[in-house]
């Protein structure tokens, strides 16, 4: 990852944390100041979906042209994506407790996101249960495509077909009114870009660490032969 992108990520996040707390937001009942959570909760999900998308691209790349590098990148992007997803879930639960009245509301979007996270957890269980490296890489690449294909309807389609407390769902005008608020967009979009860049940065670090690990194993193998 280019250095200027890292600096851009840091700059954007600093701006988001200042602007997110100090800039004007719409004054709405029930939400009150908690509307600011939008700047921190929603970018987690944008980050997760972006990282999962990059992950599935590397999985497809692996199946087309198997290489250790594609496999490494596919795993690590999914790994960091899952961290973003868990953070999104926790922040969402905390917010739900104050906006909706309970941590777990059985809301379609909340349930869908939980199932999506479990589908991705299974990806790591699958990886952990196959000994042979090539088999593991190929099987998990195929599974990753399935996981991504399952996540999209679970998060983006099913919740929109039913009514839900979560904004952006069917029968609920929801966030449209503040989504369209330009004051919030000024902070929200930089937050999304900043967190996505941050996620990619952490992922590249993990990919490099994994590459170092693999190299050390190679050197050890050569020594024993």
């Amino acid at each position, binding site marked *: 990852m280019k250095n200027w992108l890292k600096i851009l990520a840091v700059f954007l996040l*600093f701006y988001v944390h200042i602007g997110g*707390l100090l800039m004007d937001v719409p004054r*709405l*009942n029930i939400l009150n100041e908690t509307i600011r959570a939008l700047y921190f909760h929603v970018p987690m999900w944008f980050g997760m979906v972006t990282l999962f998308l990059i992950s599935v691209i590397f999985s497809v790349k692996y199946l087309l042209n198997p290489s250790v590098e594609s496999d490494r990148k596919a795993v690590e992007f999914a790994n960091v994506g899952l961290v973003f997803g868990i953070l999104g879930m926790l922040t969402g639960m905390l917010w739900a407790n104050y906006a909706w009245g309970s941590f777990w509301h059985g809301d379609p979007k909340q349930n869908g996101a939980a199932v999506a996270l479990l589908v991705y957890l299974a990806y790591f269980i699958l990886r952990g249960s196959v000994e042979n490296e090539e088999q593991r890489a190929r099987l998990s690449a195929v599974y990753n495509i399935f996981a991504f294909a399952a996540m999209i309807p679970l998060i983006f389609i099913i919740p929109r077909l039913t009514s839900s407390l979560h904004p952006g769902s069917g029968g609920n005008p929801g966030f449209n009114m503040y989504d369209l608020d330009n004051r919030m967009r000024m902070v929200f979009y930089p937050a999304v870009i900043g967190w996505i860049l941050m996620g990619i940065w952490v992922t590249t670090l993990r990919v490099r*660490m994994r590459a170092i690990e693999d190299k050390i194993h190679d*050197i050890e193998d050569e020594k024993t032969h």
Partner: protein
Amino acid sequence: MKKLISSLLGLVLMALSLTANAQSDVPMADGLRSEGKIYVVVAIILIVLAGLVVYLFLMDRKVKKLEDLLSEKKPSTK
């Protein structure tokens, strides 16, 4: 000139009182903001963020060092 200033001032005051009226509808943390204590919160969050970012940069450098170390070591073992 004086008239202009006073009329401008009047406009500003009117705008202020209008926003003040709008603010009273929905309870928000206006007190925290007017006291300036919100800046304490912002500063604390920024310290944590800055610390994490610096740590991430240091980790990046550490990984780079390890990579260099390995690329030096690799040819000698072959």
